[in-house]
């Protein structure tokens, strides 16, 4: 349906040739804009209707006081299903520390949260198919689990700013929720507005980059330069992703275009994870609670993990 519409606009309405570069780019753009935004609105609305979004206050209450492996499992799972705005990462970090949750577990949550969420997962299935979606989600869970464990080895507690330890948190406020159907509908519409309002620009940008890549970069250039399975393509993709930042949903159309031109699966996944999880703005926000040493270590652990994952998938594929 979306493809049909895109063909109609690009080749019918605008009269572009199906073989031309502009035609291919416009067709890709129209198809992904309509498909991704339709999916986005649908998924967020349904999740909102079910009130399935967990608040960080409840996550904290779930995780506190559990043995390490249970706490980590919960933190990673909850990180994956709760979309939270990076502006909340400071209070979240402090709240976790105050609850006595180990820092390694907190890092597992901080890794999983931007990288995986149910919205991105559904769109991945819609755009790239369930196999790649499953690969991406399981790779993300693995990295979050072991990345947090690796951080713990370095005893990151010594790099937490002193004032963080002194903060005492009040009882989590129980806020009344309107559970009627109308209340749920209003809440769901609010969620759609809030989340789409937050990420639409990233998504459009991602689709634009994907469309240009799809239309203007020839496949043989890709194989020659981003070359098949050469070992250095994966760390190069990870390095490229560090200064680049986008929402997990925004990077999907870029990955779609890359895979379409024959970039290896592991290389593409490594770039996706690096762009979604490693970002300068996020690091600067976290600087308020931890010192540079811990941030540097965090970036290094993630970069190494993404590289390993990329290599592994390139070998398997």
């Amino acid at each position, binding site marked *: 349906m979306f493809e049909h519409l895109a063909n109609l606009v690009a080749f019918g309405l605008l009269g572009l040739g199906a073989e031309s570069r502009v035609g291919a780019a416009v067709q890709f753009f129209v198809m992904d804009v309509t498909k991704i935004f339709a999916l986005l609105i649908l998924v967020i609305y349904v999740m909102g209707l079910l009130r399935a979004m967990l*608040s*960080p*206050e409840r996550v*904290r209450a779930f995780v506190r006081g559990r043995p390490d492996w249970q706490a980590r499992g919960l933190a990673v799972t909850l990180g994956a299903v709760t979309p*939270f*705005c990076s*502006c*909340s990462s*400071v*209070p*979240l970090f*402090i*709240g976790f520390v*105050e609850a006595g949750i180990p820092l390694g577990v907190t890092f597992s949550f901080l890794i999983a949260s931007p990288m995986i969420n149910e919205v991105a997962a559904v769109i991945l299935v819609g755009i790239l198919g369930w196999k790649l979606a499953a690969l991406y989600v399981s790779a993300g869970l693995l990295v979050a689990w072991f990345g947090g464990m690796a951080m713990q080895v370095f005893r990151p507690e010594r790099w937490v700013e002193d*004032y963080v330890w*002194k*903060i*005492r*948190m*009040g*009882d*989590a*406020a129980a*806020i009344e929720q309107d559970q009627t159907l109308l209340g749920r509908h*209003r809440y769901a519409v*609010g*969620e759609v507005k*809030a989340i789409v309002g937050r990420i639409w620009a990233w998504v459009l940008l991602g689709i634009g980059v994907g469309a240009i890549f799809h239309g203007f970069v020839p496949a043989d250039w890709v194989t020659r330069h981003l070359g098949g399975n050469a070992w250095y393509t994966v760390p190069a993709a990870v390095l490229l992703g560090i200064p680049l930042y986008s929402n997990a949903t925004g990077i999907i159309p870029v990955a779609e275009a890359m895979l379409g031109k024959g970039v290896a699966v592991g290389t593409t996944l490594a770039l996706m994870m690096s762009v979604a999880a490693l970002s300068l703005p996020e690091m600067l926000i976290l600087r308020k609670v931890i010192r540079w040493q811990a941030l540097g270590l965090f970036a290094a652990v993630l970069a190494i993990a993404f590289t390993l994952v990329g290599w592994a998938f390139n070998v398997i594929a």
Partner: protein
Amino acid sequence: MKKFKVLGSGCRNCEITANVIAQAAKEAGVEIELEKVTDMARILGYGVMSTPGVVLDETVVHAGSVPAPDQVRAWVRG
């Protein structure tokens, strides 16, 4: 007089929330006191981790998003 506090470390949605409350009070012709709390220790002291949060007369009534307009009107009038 009702005392409102908007909890948040200065993000855009916190600004919007404060404006929505001020606007609703003006429309209802109700005088309120409105304070923006940006200090992390105080925000967490209310048990709020997801900002923006809204405190009405020392009770947390909202957290995690910009509140809906009719919700704000209810706080101002109620």
